[in-house]
């Protein structure tokens, strides 16, 4: 593979597309065959075409700090990330197992709390949870499911093991970019899609709609499903609008709803009030209902919790589902799986030190230079310490933070997460990446085919979050056994 060795030498850890001695992994071989026929000018022209398409399609995300310029084009790398289908099926099983256990766990916490009584999950962790909502106690949502949409972040370490890094159970975002990335790639490289068995991703909106519709409290044939958005200034507004459009659901803001004197939720339409069956909310719990949570929230729907508790409306994810979206709870997930499913976890957790435990905390404080420290309840990559890259001052500051509030911090060994070739300037360079698949659960379960691959665009960086300059790649699950590739 001449072309590849000429264009891509860096092997700093496990590479998703390239194995030992610069030989492409089997699933990626046809891609490199194809790229070598293109020539670098053509490759750059395709990238330019991709950027033009992104601008024209208006695929954007929002960065808060850039005043006046509320949306930014979605940064996209045209070299796909490829996984063989056989490996993917294993991951898919692991994700389903995980979400099933997490939902049993959440349901238990808001009802009988067997897991606490049986001494598996410590009462003090529950007591210290920011995301546990007393207002949700005693509620029995349909199918016992609280987290209907979960985005779990996966990373691969240098030895090839795939770990679950976190489970986003509040309002995970990114799925629209997964769908749009595929649209762009199909526009850009139709030849590849003709000759490869790349599994399609585009049934997600239908599956999402089915998941939401299954929650409808009324047996209506076509339930009224809404997407509740905070509005155009939210970083994920593009996605809210995109999903509503794809599902044929109403895209609505808090002020478009009201809760009637009958504890039923209605939309304000030109023909008068219309009863709402399901709300796919993309607003955090805190802002959901000013009567129960933050009274100053102008984004939510006053009285919504009242209606939900009475069962006149379904909310996805339910209020309170975020209790399991906590990096301390994360450490217990393997135990949670064993407890509820009586099975071993299919996908491993990253080993996690809980600073609330004396022994763990001492270890963490003595090994800050090798660990990654994360606050329990932040998302978007904020408030983290990457020990090996931090200055002594930064490490000292984190030591203080940990001692002041141990419950709020966990630490993990710094993984040498995998890379993939990424087009930088006019050549390929290794960049670290992760993968966020989305898992749906109502009466049935569904996992996206692949997910959103996020890539850290800075050399050596491990931060893939789009809010911090990360980019993305299309993710291909390829069926090597089907008559793939070579014509």
């Amino acid at each position: 593979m001449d072309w590849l060795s000429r264009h891509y030498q860096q092997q700093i850890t496990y590479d998703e597309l390239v194995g030992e001695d610069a030989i492409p992994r089997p699933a990626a071989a046809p891609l490199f065959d194809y790229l070598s026929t293109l020539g670098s000018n053509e490759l750059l022209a395709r990238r330019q075409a991709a950027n033009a398409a992104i601008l024209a399609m208006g695929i954007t995300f929002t960065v808060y700090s850039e005043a006046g310029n509320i949306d930014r084009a979605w940064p996209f790398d045209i070299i796909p990330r490829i996984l063989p289908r056989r490996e993917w099926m294993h991951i898919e099983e692991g994700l389903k197992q995980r979400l099933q256990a997490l939902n049993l766990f959440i349901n238990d916490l808001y009802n009988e709390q067997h897991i606490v009584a049986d001494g598996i999950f410590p009462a003090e962790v529950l007591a210290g949870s920011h995301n546990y909502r007393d207002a949700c106690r005693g509620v029995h949502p349909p199918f016992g499911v609280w987290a209907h949409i979960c985005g779990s972040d996966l990373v691969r370490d240098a030895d090839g093991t795939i770990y679950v890094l976190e489970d986003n159970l509040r309002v995970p975002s990114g799925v629209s970019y997964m769908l749009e990335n595929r649209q762009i790639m199909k526009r850009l490289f139709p030849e590849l899609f003709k000759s490869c068995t790349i599994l399609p991703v585009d049934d997600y909106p239908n599956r999402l709609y089915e998941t939401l519709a299954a929650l409808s409290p009324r047996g209506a044939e076509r339930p009224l499903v809404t997407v509740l958005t905070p509005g155009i200034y939210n970083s994920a507004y593009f996605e809210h609008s995109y999903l509503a459009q794809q599902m044929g659901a109403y895209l609505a803001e808090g002020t478009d709803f009201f809760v009637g004197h009958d504890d039923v939720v209605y939309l304000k339409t030109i023909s008068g009030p219309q009863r709402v069956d399901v709300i796919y909310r993309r607003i955090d719990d805190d802002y959901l209902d000013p009567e129960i949570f933050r009274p100053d929230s102008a984004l939510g729907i006053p009285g919504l919790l009242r209606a939900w508790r009475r069962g006149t409306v379904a909310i996805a994810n339910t209020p309170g589902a975020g209790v399991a979206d906590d990096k301390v709870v994360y450490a217990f997930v393997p135990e949670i799986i064993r407890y509820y499913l009586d099975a071993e976890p299919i996908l491993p957790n990253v080993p996690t030190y809980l600073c609330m435990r004396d022994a763990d905390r001492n270890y963490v404080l003595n090994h800050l230079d090798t660990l990654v420290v994360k606050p329990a309840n932040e998302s978007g990559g904020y408030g983290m310490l990457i020990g090996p890259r931090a200055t002594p001052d930064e490490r000292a500051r984190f030591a203080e933070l940990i001692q002041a509030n141990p419950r709020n911090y966990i630490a993990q060994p710094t993984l040498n997460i995998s890379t993939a070739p990424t087009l930088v300037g006019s050549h390929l360079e290794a960049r670290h990446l992760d993968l966020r698949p989305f898992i749906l659960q109502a009466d049935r379960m569904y996992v996206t085919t692949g997910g959103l691959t996020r890539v850290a665009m800075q050399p050596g960086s491990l931060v893939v979050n789009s809010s911090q300059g990360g980019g993305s790649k299309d993710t291909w699950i390829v069926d090597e056994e089907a008559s793939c590739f070579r014509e």
Partner: protein
Amino acid sequence: MLSRVAENLYWMARYLERTEDMARLINATTLLLLDLPQGAQFGWDILLQVTGDAKLYTEHYGVPEEGRIMRFLIADERHPNSLMAAIHQARENCRTFRDVLPADFWERLNVLFLFVRENAGSSSDSRHGRYAFLNEVIARRHALVGLLIGSMSQDNVYQFIKLGRNMERADMTTRIVDVTSAVILPQDQGLQNATGSSLWLGVLRALSAFEMYRRHVSVQVRSNQVVDYLLKDSKFPRSMKCCLGEMEVALAHLPNAGIPAEAVRRARRRLDTLKLADLRPDLLHEYLDQAQKDLAVVHRTIEGVYFARDDARFDAASNGLHLSAVQA
């Protein structure tokens, strides 16, 4: 349809129409002024009078001058009626309801916005470049309208777009007629004065009405006939009468349309009683003033019936009562 979406659709349609109207107005005025002798009784500032923004212009730019007026009307976002501001508003409105329109629509509108943002600044540098730029804006806006006509169900979404478009058109037509007649009529005793007829010619061009006028009314351009045509013709799509008719049709497709439909009919009855044969400048101005007020009432009733979103009004309706309009 959500009340908020209805409101945003209506405004998007108004802003898009405003974009095109502004582009036409500037191009037609440019062609016209090129034909006029030095020291004619009006100049570039007539554009400011039509849009009603002379005061804001003076605050930012001082003395009227072609290049600065163009920058103000085309590229200056501090000016809420500028072409740049209008297309930007249209795009921001569209972002809130991409889900109800054909997918291509957003993409084309977004591309039009990017095109204007890219070129608006430099377009005011030369007349030639400006002309080409504005023509391109008009053409792309036509493509947007064509997309809607060709691929959209004539559902409620479509009706709100139609309402917004015709409201903005009627507003523009009445403004143009008002300003033009104020400039010409006082001096124009015989209605045959060369300046007068060329100015009306410019107006007809600005409204793309010249060919239709010539075919259906007269080869000669006469004040009273042009005014009559632009206000009362029942077939020309930019006449006041036609716009009111279109709004009435749109409302007939919408629920709870009683109050706004009555407001439209009231405006049309007043238009029907207007006699333009013995046109007197002061009477015309008085009528046009009233016509603007009538349009404002139509706008407020549409707002009250469809856009208002106070909980109490809706909660009463969920109790089995009918949705009542917030009175304009």
